[in-house]
Structures are given as structure tokens and as C-alpha cells.
């Protein structure tokens, strides 16, 4: 125990304070109007409206999945990001009277999905159009779920396939086979070993952190946008630390690395 912090965690605690502080300060500045950060365009998220419009025009459903998302695993935050985008998509679908089918993977998020979609339909003023049957549970195991989604896509001839959340091997199964229904495909994940498949097989791909930023990006409210500005500060901090550490090590000074190891 050093300064009351467990061994080997002092540096990470300091870094945590720095990252969280940067996030909160940027969020506060943007919320109180002292700063107006502008977000660059994320093509994948802009394409959601186009996809819903196409689904309405062709009278065919939109299929939406949040990968093997649950809340009891370490990648729960990707599921939350996927559910937030589901709220946005459901609101658009309600407004344009398009049918949105969502396939939850882990049973723990079924109530959350109903909650998010119902609120979206209420926001769009179409609360009576919300139908719980459009949330189809497929068993909660990786490949039966993937094959179930695949079958539904081809039977319904979906006009748009949206995949936002943690994916594993089923990413390519869904995005490659989904291509042949003629659908627009928008996919994003922060499981870095699967991003390559979405980049290759889908029309639009969200890469890693873009999935996390989607909720804030789509909400367009200054508070959330502020935190994205804060995340840029945190990245600059990481880059600065990296350059500093590399130069110091090259110069033979190990002070920074010793602090990291504290």
C-alpha cells in the first residue's frame, strides 16, 4: 500500500482522475455554453436515417441487433451503446411507420430493450404502434442466435440491417449473408478483432470508440457533446504521455516508467 492505494495501481488511479476530470470539465464548459465543440461527421450514424427512409419506401422491415450483448459481462458498455442507438432508430422507425425488429441476445437485456423502444415510440407520438412482438428472443447462445437472425433477415427480406454492440465470430456471418438480401448494412463494434469484418462486409462501419460516442453524437445535446470533446483531451493526454515516456526511455531516464509501475 503506497499513499493508501494498493500496489501497482497508483499511476492508474492518477490517470483515472485525469481522464474523468477532462471529461467532466469539457462537459461542464459545453453545457454552460462557454464552449461550442463541433463534432466531425460519423458516416455510419448519418446513414441510419437514410436506411429507415429506404425501409419505409420499400415497405420492408429493419433488423437490428446488439451483438452478443448482455449486462453481466465486461463488454456491457457496448451493449448500452447499442441500446442507445436502438432508441434513436426506433424513434425514426415510429415516425416513418417502418417496422423495426430487434433481436436481443442475452435475456438480461430483454426488459431494457422493451423500455428503450417503448420510450422511443412515445417520444415519436406513436405509443400505440409499439408492439412487444417485434423484440424476438432467440435463445441466448451465439450460433443459434446468429442463425436465427440470418433466417429472419432472409425470410423478411430486410431493407436495412443494423448491428451495434459487442460481436464475435458471428459478425461476418450476419454482415456477409445479410448483404444478399439487398439491405443497407450499418455495423459498429468495439471488439477490435471483429472491426475488420464490418469494414470489409458492411456498407458503413463504426470503428471502436465511434460506437461509444454514438449516443452523445445522435443526442446532439451540448452536455453529451461536451464529454466527446473531453475524450479528445484524454487522447491528447495519452499521446503526450506516450511521447514523453518513449523519449525519456530513449534517454535512459526511467523516472516516468518507475512512476507507472508504482
Amino acid at each position: 500500500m503506497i499513499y493508501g492505494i494498493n500496489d501497482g495501481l497508483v499511476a492508474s488511479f492518477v490517470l483515472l482522475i485525469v481522464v474523468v476530470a477532462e471529461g467532466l470539465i469539457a462537459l461542464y464548459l459545453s453545457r454552460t455554453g462557454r464552449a461550442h465543440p463541433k463534432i466531425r461527421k460519423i458516416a455510419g450514424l448519418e446513414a441510419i436515417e437514410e436506411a429507415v427512409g429506404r425501409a419505409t419506401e420499400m415497405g420492408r422491415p429493419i433488423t437490428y441487433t446488439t451483438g452478443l450483448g448482455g449486462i453481466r459481462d465486461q463488454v456491457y458498455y457496448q451493449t448500452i451503446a447499442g441500446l442507445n442507438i436502438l432508441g434513436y432508430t426506433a424513434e425514426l422507425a415510429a415516425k416513418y411507420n417502418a417496422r423495426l425488429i430487434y433481436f436481443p441476445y442475452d435475456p438480461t437485456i430483454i426488459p431494457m430493450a422493451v423500455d428503450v423502444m417503448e420510450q422511443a415510440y412515445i417520444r415519436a407520438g406513436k405509443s400505440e404502434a409499439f408492439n412487444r412482438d417485434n423484440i424476438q428472443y432467440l435463445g441466448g447462445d451465439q450460433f443459434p442466435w446468429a442463425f436465427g437472425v440470418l433466417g429472419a433477415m432472409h425470410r423478411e427480406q430486410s431493407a436495412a440491417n443494423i448491428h451495434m454492440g459487442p460481436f464475435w465470430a458471428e459478425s461476418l456471418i450476419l454482415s456477409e449473408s445479410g448483404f444478399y438480401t439487398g439491405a443497407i448494412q450499418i455495423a459498429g463494434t468495439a471488439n477490435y478483432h471483429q472491426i475488420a469484418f464490418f469494414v470489409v462486409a458492411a456498407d458503413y462501419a463504426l470503428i471502436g470508440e465511434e460506437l461509444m460516442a454514438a449516443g452523445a453524437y445522435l443526442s446532439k445535446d451540448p452536455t453529451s457533446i461536451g464529454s466527446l470533446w473531453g475524450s479528445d483531451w484524454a487522447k491528447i493526454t495519452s499521446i503526450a504521455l506516450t511521447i514523453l515516456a518513449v523519449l525519456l526511455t530513449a534517454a535512459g531516464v526511467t523516472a516516468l516508467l518507475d512512476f507507472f509501475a508504482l
Partner: protein
Amino acid sequence: MSIGSISKIDRRYLYILLFIAVSIPLLSPLKLPIPIGEHAKRVYDLTESLTAGDIVIESFDFGPSTRPENYPQAKGHLFHARELGLKVVALAFWPSGAPIGEEALREVYGADFEHSSEYGQTVVYLGYVPGNEVGMQTFGDDTSTAKGTDHWGTSLTDLPLMRDECRSAEDFDLWAEWASGTPGEQQVIQFVQGRHGGPSAVPIVVGATAVSVSGMMNFYTSGQIYGILNGLAGAGEYEFMLNIGYGYPYEQGPSLDAQSLGHVLILAFIVLGNIGYLLTRSKGGKS
């Protein structure tokens, strides 16, 4: 069939071609030679460097779907550990890994090894340890709180290997992680190795599906992972080394030949697709 259309071949013909290309070597093997990669070599050398009596954790964290890659890796390493007289504590953080771990132990240690004299002294099988990464963290902090009983319900207090020697991560000499996703090698790094003295105290070797290897490379370059068996090729290389060292059967020959033909065919698809694409673009046609 104009030249341009070779960039638009119906996918079903490609599937039939792939089916044929992979089936041929399985029916009549071509016996292509295989180079030993240094990722696999490091796993073999680290295991060889352990002395008799060291404790190795064999963690079966995969399901039947990735069995073709993970099972030969795990069985080979188990055989190697037994040949070197290492003490093996096997377990599974995936429910679907438990029956597979049991099967591998029976193949290496004998049909009903749980009744043999060795059991509890030099080999223990805990079976499914629940809790995913939380279970790993608890197992690393204190093996008995993670699971009070072994795979068949006997309490750990009756097994000398668990009661006296293997009580927490400080006692692990090597963690062999047979992984195909989460929880897997990165959770072992974060929740066991990271909390108990880093790579020098708890070295990790990983046998993984080839897909997850590219994702763990930065943990390999940072030394957090010592060596990697990379999918089927890794299993074949390890079997090859064991075959030379201990006469272990080398079964992956036909599979690796089929691999090569599959790869060549996909390369041909890519080249074909691009030739067609460039020709149509140069003719000003719509791509």
C-alpha cells in the same frame, strides 16, 4: 460472359469451388511440409524449461464450436505437462468447456484417472468454475473461494495438491489458457496476472483460435503473453515438436494441406475479382 462479369460471379459457384478445393486433400493427403513459427516455439520452450513438480493451470475456456482448433492444442500441452512430471490443475471458466476438459484429461491421464493414485497429488480437475472474469479474479486471489469442490464434488480440503500447494496465483508456475473469446486470455492478464506480480510471476501461454490472435498481439509484444499457439497451424506445429521430442502422433497433416488449398483458392478469388473490376473500370463501364 463478358470479361467484366468475372468480378460479379454468383457467390454459390465460389462456395462449390471452395468445398471441392478443401475436400481433395482430406480424401488424399498431399503431405506439404510445415514451417515451425516462433510463437509456437516459445510455448514449447517455456513448458520444457519448467522443472518436475511445478504447478501448471490448464484452463479450458472454449466451446465445442472451436474444438477443431483448441482441443488438439490443449491435449498436446497436457501430454507435454505429464511427460515433464508437472503438477496439473485443470479447470474451465466456460460451462461448455467442462465436459471437453474432462475428455482431454481422460485421453492423457487414463479413462478413470479421478480414481487413480495420481489424482489429488499431481493432477486435479475442478471442472466448471462460474463467474467468468470475476471467477478468474477470485481463483487467482484464493483458489478455494472460487470453487469449494472439484468436478465430481469432492471438497478441495481432501485434495493435497489444492489444500497445501495450489492456494493462490503466487503458487502458479504457468497458466496455459485454451481460449476462443471472453472470458479468455485478456481476462487472465487483467484479473489474475495483473493482480499478482505481472508476467514474471504468472507467465501465460495461450492456445487460441487464429481469429483472436491478431487482437492479442499487443499483449504478446508487451510480454504479458509469453507464447501463442495460433489456431490449427499452431496445434500442428506443437504436435510436430512433440512428435520429435516424445513421439506424440502428428494428426494435423491433411488438415494443414486443406488449409493451403483453401488459402490459394481465396487468393485466386481476390485476383479474379480485381482483374474483372479493373477491366470494367478501364472500359468506362459502371463498376
